């Protein structure tokens, strides 16, 4: 029951989060911007459209959107949302998350190569480059976080009350990883459709209609998963209180945490310019170093 509720929550709220960030970005740039609900309209529109499939494409291209969606939703199961322990915590731990995301990415990169377009190849190459550098940084951040609790269980560290220094540093590392994984500035740009800078958008260039909607949905959910992770690390929250008077502030704070991260992402996106591809290595190297620092802090016990 809780599993279904959790998946529905992710599916329903994830597009909103994206809409919120883009609204914030537009307002920060002194524009009115699109409605917060625009991602929902986009999904609805894509779902009702015809789709074009390349004649070069094989079954890999047709299957990929489902693999990407299912791997992302499986990852969403691992995140503790309503209660401390995630409902499916016996299915896998924090490290499994890294591997599950790799599954979706693997197929997305293959589908990009499947159409024979050079945009696709370019996107696939860049995405695999960035993601392979994300993995050590991600692993190091997980290492730092799990050192405190002595377990790689995602729910193990969410019950803490005092936030140690190592958690803060690890959360910053996670934040940098989130930027890279959700294809945001300075690593990638979701808004630009220019062949020189595209990464994620170049990979999904050949998709249209319903399949594109599924892939977009998956990337919204993926973003939300990362936001929840950061929130669990830096703003740990207790279990859902039983007392009715405490529920409202709990729920408010629960979503405020996600809001704070969304605002930070929007601020970063409007204030920083996109990096050259090869400087992404330095960016992710910095995330890795932050992970090492966080681990040292955790070893020292602060």
């Amino acid at each position, binding site marked *: 029951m809780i599993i279904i509720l959790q998946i529905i929550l992710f599916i329903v709220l994830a597009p909103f989060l994206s809409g919120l960030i883009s609204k914030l970005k537009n307002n920060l740039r002194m524009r009115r911007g699109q409605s917060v609900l625009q991602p929902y309209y986009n999904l609805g529109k894509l779902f009702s459209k015809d789709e074009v499939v390349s004649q070069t494409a094989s079954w890999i291209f047709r299957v990929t959107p489902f693999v990407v969606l299912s791997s992302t939703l499986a990852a969403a199961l691992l995140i503790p949302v309503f209660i401390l322990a995630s409902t499916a915590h016996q299915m896998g731990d924090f490290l499994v998350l890294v591997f599950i995301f790799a599954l979706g990415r693997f197929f997305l990169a293959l589908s990009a190569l499947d159409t024979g377009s050079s945009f696709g190849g370019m996107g696939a190459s860049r995405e695999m480059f960035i993601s392979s550098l994300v993995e050590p940084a991600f692993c190091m951040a997980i290492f730092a976080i799990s050192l405190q609790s002595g377990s*790689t269980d995602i729910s193990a560290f969410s019950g803490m009350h005092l936030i140690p220094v190592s958690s803060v540093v690890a959360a910053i590392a996670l934040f940098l990883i989130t930027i890279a994984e959700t294809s945001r500035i300075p690593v990638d740009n979701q808004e630009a459709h220019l062949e020189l800078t595209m990464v994620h958008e170049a990979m999904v260039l050949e998709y249209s209609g319903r399949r594109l909607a599924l892939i977009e949905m998956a990337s919204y959910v993926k973003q939300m998963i990362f936001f929840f992770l950061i929130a669990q690390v830096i703003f740990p929250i207790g279990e859902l209180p039983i007392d009715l008077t405490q529920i409202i502030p709990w729920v408010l704070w629960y979503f405020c945490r996600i809001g704070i991260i969304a605002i930070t992402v929007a601020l970063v996106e409007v204030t920083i310019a996109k990096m050259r591809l090869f400087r992404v290595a330095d960016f992710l190297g910095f995330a890795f170093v932050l992970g090492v620092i966080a681990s040292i802090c955790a070893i020292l016990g602060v």
Partner: protein
Amino acid sequence: MLSLFPKQLFLSDLLSLFFLCVIFIISLPSAIYSFGYLKGEYSPAKITLSWVLLIVFVLSMAAVVTVGNALIFLVAWEIMSLVSYFLVVFDTTHEKSIQAGTIYIIMTHIGTAFLIAAFLILYKYAHSFDFIAIKTACFIMPSQAKNTVFLLLLVGFGTKAGIVPLHIWLPYAHPQAPSHISSIMSGVMIKTAIYGIIRFVIFLLGVNSLWWGVLILVLAVISCLAGVIYALMERDIKRLLAYSSIENIGIILLGVGLAMLFMAMNKPYLAVFSLVAGLYHLVNHGIFKGLLFLCAGSVYKATGTRDIEKLGGLIKKMPQTAVYFLLGAMAISALPPLNGFVSEWLTLQAFFLGAFNLTGGMKLFLGICASLLALTSGLAAACFVKAFGVTFLGLPRSHYAESAKEVSLSMKSGMFFLSFLVVIFGLASSVIMKLLARVASAVMNIDVSSMSFSLNTFTLSPQPGRNIYLSAPALALWLIFFGIAGFAIYRIFGRGKEIVYKTWDCGYYKLGSRNEYTATAFSKPFRVAFNFFLLPYRKTQKIRESFYHVKSFTYETHTTKVFKKYIYEPVLVLIFRIANFMRRLQPGSIHLYLGYIFITLLLLIIFMGQF
């Protein structure tokens, strides 16, 4: 001389049994595969020869992992090396095969020389070559001697395993052999070296200092990274797989090295767990690398080329081979819920558990090693996206790929069997863990009856009380469930129809295979990011008709093989220089030779006079 005679010819412990199983699980489908593969490729006489060599090869490997006497071990080891040499040079018409064979036979004998030295030192203490006698002698052996033996064994077995920087022969020899042999060589033969390390270092010698494990871990991490980076640069599909074997040997050694580290620190539970992770990856690598080599052989058989830049679009011509290759590529990239994922997760967990249980700087060391393993798996995923994507997807890049046809039934059945195992070894991880724990306990002489690495039949749990779980079957079920649910939503709510049309070509007239992204282009970002290690360079050449008119322009990009250039080539130059110097001793004059004999005689008489 009596002590030379073996008291116990064969061992029958679980470690030997485990390796026997690995050998036969991978050799059997390769043998079935070879029916179809050899047909039409070679003359009937050569096919018979290849069967004889194959049988001797498999039997010699079986002997290597079962004999209980160091002398006979060496004999079996040597037969294995020689037969595999003959298999490497099996395509005698290719110049490359001869060259690859020469490099292989030289390197493998250097390795054997180190093994002989190690065994002689052991003999000095044990007065016997029997493993039982050696084991008892090792308890009283001084630690200085133990260290020397360990280093000699590491170099000896490391050469066979392909640890960087002793890997130099592997990318030449493995691709040159016929594909079913490549699959056995990469899947099984290099594992006999891991057997050697486990049998001689962990079982017989007994780990006595911390730095042994640390040294193996460092070498393993270097092997992982160097192997996968070279694999990424490669465009010959079989050589790519050979480089990736170096990477996977590194991952296996991470498990073995951790086990040695924990043994030295007296943490039996962790030692067993790490060794189990290593052994699990060993059998998994055998399965998926064997599978991938068979698939590469099918591609070679169907197209006549191993250069992936000339392939493309094979998924339509060879749909079944494509599925098997995809499964193998997914497993080697550690994607859930296949077997490579489970064993890489276990290896990562071994690092994490070690860090939870140890203190201080060791924690950080293990954490950084774990992240480098994560980097390796990320790069491996990129490498196999390239290998699968460029070979099987997109448009065919040459007439080789256009005229490809699906391979014969015997070849398909060999590949099917291994891809079936790829799935089974992922899903049945708890059962396999239990079996492997017994193997590890036999090696390390630790009672494992109280240790349980799993919660139930479907869920792994590395250490009780830490709430760390992994259930590959549950994960697989959820993945399938969400996939089906996604498809249902797609069918129910979607109203549009599917139109098949050309790929977006930016408004140009026609998009051809020349516009496709190539393997070299795919690996460009990696070449730039790792340029400190790869040292890429370009060769450009203008072919002019006249001063003013350039007729054509060639452009090549290469990477420098640093180990070959900065370690092996200087050594070779030195050897040649010494040889040239020594040549002066042999000018061909019979008088001088008589003089040599006389001087030798005199020296011998003086020498004998001392006794």
